[in-house]
């Protein structure tokens, strides 16, 4: 993975959740973009997130839609709204799908899914 996505996941390997923040107007953004959609500035930094957020919405995948996920079902894909205001699509790994609720506090954790790839995931109400 290269480009901005590569940088985002590079921080995850270091167990840091960072989002872009515009250094002109201060707006946070995710997913990564080349310039600030709020003010048009090309100036930005990778700013550290608090790692805390709440569940915005989710779906529970019961039927695998691709053979790669046959072993994983049922699992929930969750949209988390972060304290910084950005949202991120992820999973909450310590919560059975039936216990998920909109507004539930969650905190980022990191899962090394392969030696090269670390995904940002979430746990209920605490920070790693």
């Amino acid at each position, binding site marked *: 993975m290269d480009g901005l996505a590569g940088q985002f996941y590079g921080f995850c390997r270091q167990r840091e959740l960072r989002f872009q923040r515009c250094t002109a107007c201060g707006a946070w953004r995710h997913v990564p973009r080349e310039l600030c959609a709020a003010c048009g500035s090309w100036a930005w930094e990778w700013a550290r997130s608090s790692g805390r957020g709440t569940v915005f919405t989710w779906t529970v995948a019961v039927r695998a839609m*691709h053979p790669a996920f046959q072993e994983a079902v049922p699992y929930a894909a969750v949209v988390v709204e972060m304290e910084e205001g950005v949202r991120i699509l992820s999973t909450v790994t310590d919560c059975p799908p039936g216990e998920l609720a909109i507004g539930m506090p969650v905190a980022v954790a990191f899962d090394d899914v392969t030696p090269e790839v670390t995904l940002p995931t979430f746990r209920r109400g605490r920070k790693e």
Partner: protein
Amino acid sequence: MRDRACIVGIGETRYCRAPGSGMSQLGLNLQAATRAIEDAGLRPRDIDGIMPFPNLGSAEELAASLGVQELRFAATLNMGGAAPVASLRVAAAAVTSGLATHVLLPTGWNGYSGRRARETLVTDPTNIPGGAIARDYYIPHGLVAPPQWYALIARRHMHEFGTKPEQLGAIAVAMRKHAQLNPNAVMRGKPLTLEDYLGSPMITAPYRLFDCCLETDGGAALVVTTSERARDLGRRPVFVSGVGAAQPYPADDIATRPDIFATGLTIAAPEAFAMAGVTPADVDFAEIYDCFTFEVLQQLEEAGFCGRGEGGAFVEGGRIELGGALPVNTHGGLLSEAHVCGMSHIVEAVKQLRGDAGERQVADAEIGVVTGWGDFGDGSIAVLRR
């Protein structure tokens, strides 16, 4: 552009599942196309514009196969299931501005016997405009296919507005009832009750099996020309009274969208109604792109048939069934007729406005609406009148 372009020809193949169409994807496109051209009273060589559905055909091979020798206008709009209605808008603009005279809108695919739609994103993320974001930020977390993307919106709608599974079920039941009156509907002869719906297996919560559209083989096509030329052709013309198409913001990402209920239709619908000079209350029937039940409810809201959050109550009590205040998907839709990429929704609207819809005819239908929904919420809408 009000009433300056017309749909003058419609064509469909047989719609089916097992054992499959027995035809190639190109063959389905061509069979639907030749039927639409014949229905219009034209010859293939009269066609000089072609707008193929994204990823399902090229204007070059279609023109070569049909014998279209003077292809002046060829374009594909990358809006997924919103493409047919959005293409109708561009075709209307093309014929009224003189870029082309007779524009063909074909589609066709083996969605059952060929590669399944639900696997296409993972197989090739470039299939849709938001594919790069899905590849990098969705698929690693197991969000791989359209029902999963849209279920995120449905869940949030249930939270904010109290929308209930029974209300999504009312949509599935209505589409299935209508399919019983359609000889080409795959689900004809297979009635569905609300109990059947609620008892069907969960696919991606809150979507059950019967919230999800069919995967079928088939093709459908239209021919568009100016209203002046339409008067000289054999069929009763159907006028493109108002038409709009737009993208949600951002169009390449659902999860981070500031207003998760807004779609391209939110922008396009007021423009289409204003162009036509009518309001949703004037509409006799609506063919709403029904990839999943909730998307019908959401589009009824965003198109202005009811307010945001009121869709659940709107679809109850038979209001969207034939005989109700606003019959929706009189052919059975993607849920119970077949998945023909939204093109069959336009074909059905033309049949209704010609008075050719047989047992499922909406009495005295004068104004019909057709919508399209594609990718991460691209939207399109046409207000058609006889």
